[in-house]
């Protein structure tokens, strides 16, 4: 039943370019990219209990490396992509060493500080990043001779990568390792006594999560063909965190729902009012005060209650 629904859902996603115009295709692409990013953050926040406010560091790093090596060094796309993934994953291992000296609020503050340092660097290190002008001029590569320039072809590529990412992250969360990770979230001390290396479990998760954030960064930079320091801002981290929490941290569908809502809202609301940051702030406050569990767990509870009433 669940698998049938999922296949139908994917089929529905796949035919979007056949039934709608470029505006909605692009919107759907943005949602997929935001969802991959939110899913990667959810591994830390939802399954690991490690609330990071600096996850954009990895999206931004990967996007900047790709844009810089492609436009300034002129390397081939595959090389640029490989370099982005490898360097970003290594950096996430190094940042993980620092951030995981703490948990809880300390972890949150260190991740925030790290990403803010990178954000400042993106603005100031103009000889590499072009500073406030950002890096433009990136072109999408072609895949097996197929051009990715049209909205629909890039959407399909994004969809395939997103499905792949979802499967691999879901498998991670549901694996034996994922069970251990959730154990460290709920009862770290007991986990140690049961023979688990809690620190190593968290570090591996941090790196895996950083890798998928790097994948999201590549999609992001090829979609926009442009990267600007604002991609590394605390607002961007906060948006992703909001997608995870609003959708439901520690669920597989939650971050996707949250990402979709956020991208919709950002596109629609900001065409009416220019106050996206204020709106984002209000949503944050309201979600925390009124719906701390998120939307997906809330709906699941509702469905369970309705089923219970029927039987």
């Amino acid at each position, binding site marked *: 039943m669940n698998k049938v629904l999922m296949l139908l859902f994917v089929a529905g996603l796949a035919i979007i370019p056949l039934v709608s115009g470029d505006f909605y295709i692009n919107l759907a692409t943005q949602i997929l990219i935001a969802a991959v990013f939110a899913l990667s953050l959810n591994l830390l926040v939802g399954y690991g209990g490690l*609330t990071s406010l600096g996850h954009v560091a990895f999206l931004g790093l990967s996007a900047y490396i790709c844009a810089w090596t492609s436009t300034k060094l002129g390397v081939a796309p595959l090389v640029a992509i490989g370099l982005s993934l490898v360097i970003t994953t290594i950096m996430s291992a190094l940042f993980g060493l620092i951030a995981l000296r703490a948990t809880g*609020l*300390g972890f949150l503050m260190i991740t925030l500080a790290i990403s803010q340092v990178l954000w400042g*660097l993106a603005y100031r290190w103009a000889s590499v990043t072009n500073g406030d002008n950002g890096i433009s001029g990136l072109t999408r590569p072609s895949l097996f001779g197929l051009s990715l320039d049209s909205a629909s072809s890039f959407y399909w590529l994004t969809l395939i990568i997103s499905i792949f990412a979802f499967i691999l992250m879901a498998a991670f969360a549901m694996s034996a390792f994922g069970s251990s990770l959730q154990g460290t979230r709920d009862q770290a001390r007991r986990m140690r006594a049961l023979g688990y290396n809690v620190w190593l479990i968290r570090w591996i998760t941090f790196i895996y999560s950083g890798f998928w954030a790097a994948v999201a960064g590549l999609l992001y930079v090829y979609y926009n063909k442009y990267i600007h320091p604002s991609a590394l801002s605390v607002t961007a981290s906060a948006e992703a965190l909001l997608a995870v929490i609003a959708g439901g941290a520690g669920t597989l569908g939650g971050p996707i729902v949250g990402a979709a809502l956020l991208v919709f809202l950002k596109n629609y609301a900001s065409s009416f009012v220019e106050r996206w*940051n204020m709106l984002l702030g209000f949503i944050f406050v309201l979600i925390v005060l009124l719906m701390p569990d998120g939307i997906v767990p809330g709906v699941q509870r509702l469905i369970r209650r309705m089923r219970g009433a029927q039987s």
Partner: protein
Amino acid sequence: MQFWVVQGLNSLALGGLLFLLASGFSLIFGLMRLANLTHGAMFMLGAYIGAGLMRSVDGVSLWVAAIAGGLGVALFGWVLERFILRRLPDNPLGQVLVTLGVAFIIADACLLIWGGDPIPIPAPSYLARPLFVGGFAFPAYRLVVVLIALAAAAGLYVMIERTRLGAMIRAGVDDMQMARAVGIPVSRLFSIVFCLGAGIAGAGGVLAGPILSAYPGLDADMLPLALIVVILGGIGSLMGAFVGSFIIGIIYTFGTALLPDLAYIILFLPMIVVIAFRPQGLFGHVSA
């Protein structure tokens, strides 16, 4: 030589401003276990209140504006603590997210009210001219900022170490449960410390005006510096905030002057060293 003197004074002035920001952040974190991400926005809000007041009312001096900015932001902090944060007891994560949301709201509200162009805040005319000592020109206003920060540090030190209120704060930072158990009015203490921290940050924002001016993004520029100060100095430690502020002030100022591209990476190094070898910070005894 003139370069070193001026940059030296600049770094001390920045350190002083950072102390006004970070001391409140650190006290609030130490006592309430609350990472108040609104703190950078409060600093900016103070700057704008001061700038707006001086621009719209003739004859308001910087000092009056600083007091007004401090009081205005303290009032705002009281509302935030009393009506929102207090609804989320024992939910540190929810509290952080709320303060982050409120920071976005303040930042956007400032943009809405005061516009996107920086608003300069003039230093008092008698401090606008440099002071000549021994053949070197010292920017007089920066000297005064350093003196104000030192006075604030001394005042906070006396308050925390010598008064009844301070004794209660110290007890709360050390062991909240014990503090509750011996009958310290914890919730009132939270309000006082939150308002105090907010007020110092607000006044600090106005005092920063003649050096930095009020501009959109001031919050995002200051908050990471304050975070690094607190990580460096240790959470809840006034001494840590003091030493950390001046270390970061010096590193950031000289870093920007000598290696403008990489100043942010240089900021990173002391933080990494401290986290690696002393995760509780230089002067902290509570681990983050």
